[in-house]
């Protein structure tokens, strides 16, 4: 394999895995606080359409990312209000949020589906970003570096900061965190909003980083894969990084299999398209065989907090 091809693969994989990584890091923090938000896919679609529209009308990519994050927070607040303030079923509410995001984004994007926008350019100057070798390090847009920083940031927050310690305590044992005097609901609201912001930014990656346009359901289940990745990574940020790149590889493998002309190119395109989802199932199976994975799940995950009972 030539160096050029290798670099091309790495660059594509990093791009493809970035939205999954960002969304999964957000969901990881949410789940660490004991909340299961299955609305990631819906929030990502809302982020994607918002980012597209802002870019389309202003041409300002960074504004688009910010607004997408805000839209993600707003949609996560629907979830937060229903599950945290009204103790509604988290599974059902998350599903409802995904259905809502799918419909809402399609509605908002009505009539824009063939309009092009520009991709967010590389962060570093062209000498580095377009260099045949160094582009493997410097050829990406700010969103990619943001994802890297986020891995470290989330790890540091959960492992080293006091706020992260409180968040984990809330997720592991809400009643005792409550008895020490922390606001369980307040902490969970913050976590859910953070997850919403990250899902919004992850959604923004689609029109700004991958395909410079809007298409209905353009996230294509990546939000669900992000949820699965959190389980796969046993709630650890650095494992999430590895998992996201693994999925990025699976998602882009088709291109190279086709190009190589070898026996792999005989595999039908549909099987390649199904690969990330099959891989998710396989990965979930493998992770469950290794028994320690499930024991690492936050103890209060998905359970409403009802101190009165």
């Amino acid at each position, binding site marked *: 394999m030539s160096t050029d091809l290798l670099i091309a693969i790495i660059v594509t994989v990093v791009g493809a895995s970035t939205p999954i990584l960002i969304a999964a890091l957000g969901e990881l923090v949410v789940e660490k606080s004991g909340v299961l938000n299955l609305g990631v896919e819906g929030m990502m679609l809302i982020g994607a359409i918002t980012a597209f529209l802002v870019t389309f009308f202003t041409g300002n990519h960074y504004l688009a990312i910010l607004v997408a994050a805000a839209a993600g927070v707003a949609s996560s607040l629907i979830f937060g209000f229903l599950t945290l303030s009204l103790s509604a079923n988290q599974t059902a509410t998350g599903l409802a949020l995904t259905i809502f995001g799918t419909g809402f984004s399609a509605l908002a994007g009505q009539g824009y589906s063939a309009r092009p926008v520009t991709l967010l350019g590389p962060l570093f100057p062209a000498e580095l970003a377009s260099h045949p070798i160094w582009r493997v390090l410097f050829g990406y847009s700010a969103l990619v570096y943001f994802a890297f920083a986020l891995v470290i940031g989330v790890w540091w927050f959960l492992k*080293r900061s*006091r706020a992260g*310690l*409180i968040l*984990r*305590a809330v997720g592991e044992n809400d009643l005792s965190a409550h008895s*020490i005097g922390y606001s369980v609901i307040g902490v969970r609201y913050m976590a859910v909003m953070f997850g919403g912001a990250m899902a919004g930014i992850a959604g923004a990656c689609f029109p700004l980083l991958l395909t410079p346009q809007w298409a209905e359901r353009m996230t294509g289940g990546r939000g669900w894969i992000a949820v699965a990745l959190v389980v796969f990574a046993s709630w650890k940020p650095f494992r999430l990084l590895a998992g996201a790149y693994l999925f990025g590889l699976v998602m882009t493998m088709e291109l190279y299999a086709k190009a190589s002309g070898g026996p792999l190119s005989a595999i039908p395109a549909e099987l390649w398209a199904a690969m990330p989802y099959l891989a998710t199932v396989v990965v979930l199976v493998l992770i469950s065989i290794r028994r320690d994975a499930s*024991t690492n799940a936050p103890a209060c995950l998905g359970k409403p907090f009802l101190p009165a009972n």
Partner: protein
Amino acid sequence: MLENIALGMDSKIPSRELEARIRAVMNQYGLLLDPHRTVATLSVGERQRIEIVRALLLEPQLLIMDEPTSVLTPQEVEQLFTVLRKLAAEGCSILYISHKLHEIKALCDTATILRGGKLVDTCDPKQETSRSMAEKMIGTGLKDIVKAEGRTFGPPKLVVSQLSTVKAGHFDVPVDGVSFTVRAGEILGIAGVAGNGQNALLDALSGEIRGDDREAITIDGLGIGMMDTTERRRNGLCAVPEERNGHAAVGEFSLSDNSVLTARDRLGMVVMGLINGGAAKTYTGKVIADFAVKALGPGSMAGSLSGGNLQKYIMGREILQKPSVLVVSQPTWGVDAGAAAAIHQALVDLAAAGSAIVVISQDLDELRALSDTLAVINMGRLSPARPVKDVSVEEIGLLMGGVHGAEAA
């Protein structure tokens, strides 16, 4: 573990400094643990040590401990005592609450004995014997239940031999080689401190935990050790677990639907896969009437009943099935005196009709009034059953505290 301790501290301390302080305290008192281990991987005893370290970090003047050794092994108890003696020597006051008399004797300088929330006596445990303190603790003026004279028991009905379960979780206490026999018409009481394997014993008998030895449990000679709960019920064994709402009954279901839960097979409530709602309703009505359950009717939600009424309903639901063997755990826990008396009477009547009954309880008065024979469970092991007349309260108290008969004498 470091994090667990940090969470309980009032102010923010850098984790490096906190770790140093934890290590200092640990060395000083000989409590050796690695601060970086995950709490879930620790034994219960080790977790207890974390709690103590956490308390010691705050440099207390008074340390209050409530049954600290209930989850510790004998070796861990010895370690704990060493630490506590050292602390006391440094001027810290310690209030140590326990029912284990030999611990009090070994550790304490003065002892206060409470019974039913009332002060009974204050004494110097070094001057007293375990027996004398047990007598004060349990009280001797207990009124025995009047039972029919000359009661005779039939042949062995329920025979349990070498019944064991597997440890199911960090906090599970499995039963270990339990054997006993209950004859027709006999009530066997099983005493013990909470968390000594009572739950596992009930689940293993009811069939919620299925064994791998058919002959470990037999009813009238029929091996039922490998059957599930439904098959065991069909063969005459009914059980009532300790937790009412969510285990013995479904709070969201009507009483009628709750009758279907355990009585559907024995009372023909199922015909060709369909539930005969009328039969369930009639039976529930009978339970409500016979056991004076305060409920609007068979359609009332189980969760809307008070604890005592729900317990009367549950006991009635099982007793009116006329099981040949009935196993109950805490039959009158949290139940008012009138309801408790009614439940006791029903159990005695069921035994008089020829059933074998096992009552697992922490209430010694209840067991002494109710049982014909008595055994004590401690750390998953069961002492030999003896006629209740021949066992003194002192002996029961000692057995519950883990001191076996031979040693106490």
